[in-house]
């Protein structure tokens, strides 16, 4: 039995296997192909640009900007001007620096929350696909039940009952978005399970964990990366919603959602307080959505798109 015939990239491998990192590592032309495909995807590039610029602004911006998010200028509710491009808030704090810090909060919460979701969902999906039968049935019914509660309502319940804080919001979002990860991973893994090289690995007595990680997980990285990007946008929105309801990041630390919440009291005399945080949320969500669409077109050739 020759092992090379069993590795993905052989003639038997499905289209799904073509997007594996293994191929990317072993086959430079495939990697170049992915990069070239993505470079031609205008929407995806715009998304990447938005996300990278926002990330840079979040990380480097506060170091360069002249005030910090907690500095209180003597003048409150200043309209936008050169020194304060987004104006100042009801405590005389610079809205621009608060938006910059809010970007950091958004990235931190959404990335960690999606990692939590993946950490819960991916093992469940892999185990369900690998073992099948009763275990699969039980796990998938549990996932169905989590799916039966509207995501924001579940997030409000968990974050509210655990107590309002940034960490709890992160946990809540992570739990809420775990089910789609379990479902997609299970579905993709099931299609790989039927391939000869998995069967061969089982016949050779390769340990189960090794099969799950090396053969299943590595071969579904494409769909997984797309899923992570898509749910990053949902996580940004959910974090903002929770903070808007007072169940996320707590003052004095700014987050886009809580800034919008505070803005409502002064909206009539200082509309800029309501406009900029919301625009920031929209821009980042749009960036992740564009990026996700672009990655899907590039990494997941099976899905057709308009």
């Amino acid at each position, binding site marked *: 039995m020759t092992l090379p015939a069993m590795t993905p990239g052989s003639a038997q491998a499905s289209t799904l296997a073509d997007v594996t990192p293994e191929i990317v590592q072993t086959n430079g032309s495939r990697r170049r192909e992915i990069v070239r495909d993505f470079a031609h995807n205008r929407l995806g590039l715009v998304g990447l640009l938005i996300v990278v610029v926002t990330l840079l602004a979040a990380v480097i911006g506060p170091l360069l900007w002249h005030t910090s998010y907690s500095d209180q200028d003597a003048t409150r509710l200043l309209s936008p001007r050169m020194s304060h491009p987004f104006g100042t808030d009801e405590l005389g704090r610079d809205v621009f620096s608060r938006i910059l810090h809010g970007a950091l909060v958004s990235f931190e919460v959404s990335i960690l929350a999606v990692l939590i979701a993946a950490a819960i969902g991916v093992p469940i999906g892999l185990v369900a696909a690998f073992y099948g039968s009763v275990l699969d049935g039980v796990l998938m019914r549990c996932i169905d*039940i989590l799916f*039966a*509660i*509207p995501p924001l309502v579940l997030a409000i*319940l968990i974050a509210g009952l655990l107590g309002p804080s940034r960490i709890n919001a992160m946990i809540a979002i992570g739990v809420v978005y775990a089910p789609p990860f379990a479902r997609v991973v299970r579905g993709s893994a099931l299609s790989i399970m039927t391939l000869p090289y998995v069967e061969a690995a089982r016949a050779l007595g390769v340990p189960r964990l090794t099969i799950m990680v090396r053969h299943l997980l590595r071969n579904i990285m494409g769909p997984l990366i797309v899923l992570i990007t898509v749910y990053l946008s949902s996580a940004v929105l959910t974090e903002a919603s929770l903070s808007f309801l007072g169940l996320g990041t707590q003052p004095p630390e700014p987050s886009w959602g809580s800034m919008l919440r505070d803005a*409502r009291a002064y909206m009539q005399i200082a509309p800029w307080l309501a406009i900029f945080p919301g625009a920031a949320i929209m821009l980042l969500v749009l960036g992740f959505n564009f990026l996700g669409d672009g990655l899907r077109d590039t990494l997941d050739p099976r899905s057709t798109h308009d």
Partner: protein
Amino acid sequence: MRRQWVRRLLQAVPTLLGMSILIFGLVHLLPGDVTSALTGGEAGANASSEAALRKALGLNGSIPLQYWHFVTGLFSGHLGKSFVTGQSIATIMGGAIPITLEIALLASLMAVAVGMPLGVLSALKRNSASDLLGRVAGLVGLSVPNFWLATLALLATSRFFGWVPALEWTSFWSDPLENLSQAAVPAFCVSFYLLAMVMRMTRASMLEVLHEGYVRTARAKGAPERVVIVRHALRNSLIPVVTVVGTQVGSLMGGVTIIEVIFGIPGVGNTLINAVYTRDYPLIEVTAVFLAAVFVILNLAVDLVYGLLDPRLRAST
């Protein structure tokens, strides 16, 4: 067909049951015991007064027994009382449910009535300027946080039209016009995401269907273009649209919740949020179970409609 419906209906039962167990479990098992919250964790609150309080609140039995009381209460209407106001939960829900259902219904109608024609138009005028505009607007629509939209709507309507949300909610039956004028703006904010979704899906689905053989056949037979578009193309392109709408009903119910808070509408979502703020556990349970149940039932309805729309499914059963 009927057998399939019955099977699908029966499938919803364990989901509803599991969902209620999950919500009940979350409320009862997460840290932050209600009696310590009510007694304020004071040293003066001794064991006996806490036990008395537990009994008064119906928290003295085992967890499964409490769950049994909770579920039977859902069916008999004995929902208990709010910890905070002492009001009967059945009364609170009786007032809140019609409001939430009305807004959700209005929002869905708006999404379909506006999103679908826009999607068809965009597909028919593929690659034109209006198509491009529609596609970009669709993607932007998916990214606008609805609570920001609602905030901007409040700002704009009060600045330009002098409209502010009424302090008191008027029911549809007492004054339909006043009721609709109160519900229109919130329902629009709720519908925005779904509208963008419906538009995008209709466009994509129409584009696919327009190349199908039966559309060409209909044209070849000399059917008027309107008939071809509506009866042959649109009807068949509706199937994926309906599916997507079904999966998005959850975001609709979440949207209703947050929009109710912003406009100060006394619906179920607003009640839930206030109950979470005040740790009013029985009220949290009932409101959350209601919102999830609406979600499950609407999904079920979508599945059944799906069966009606797809001739292949009709023929096979």
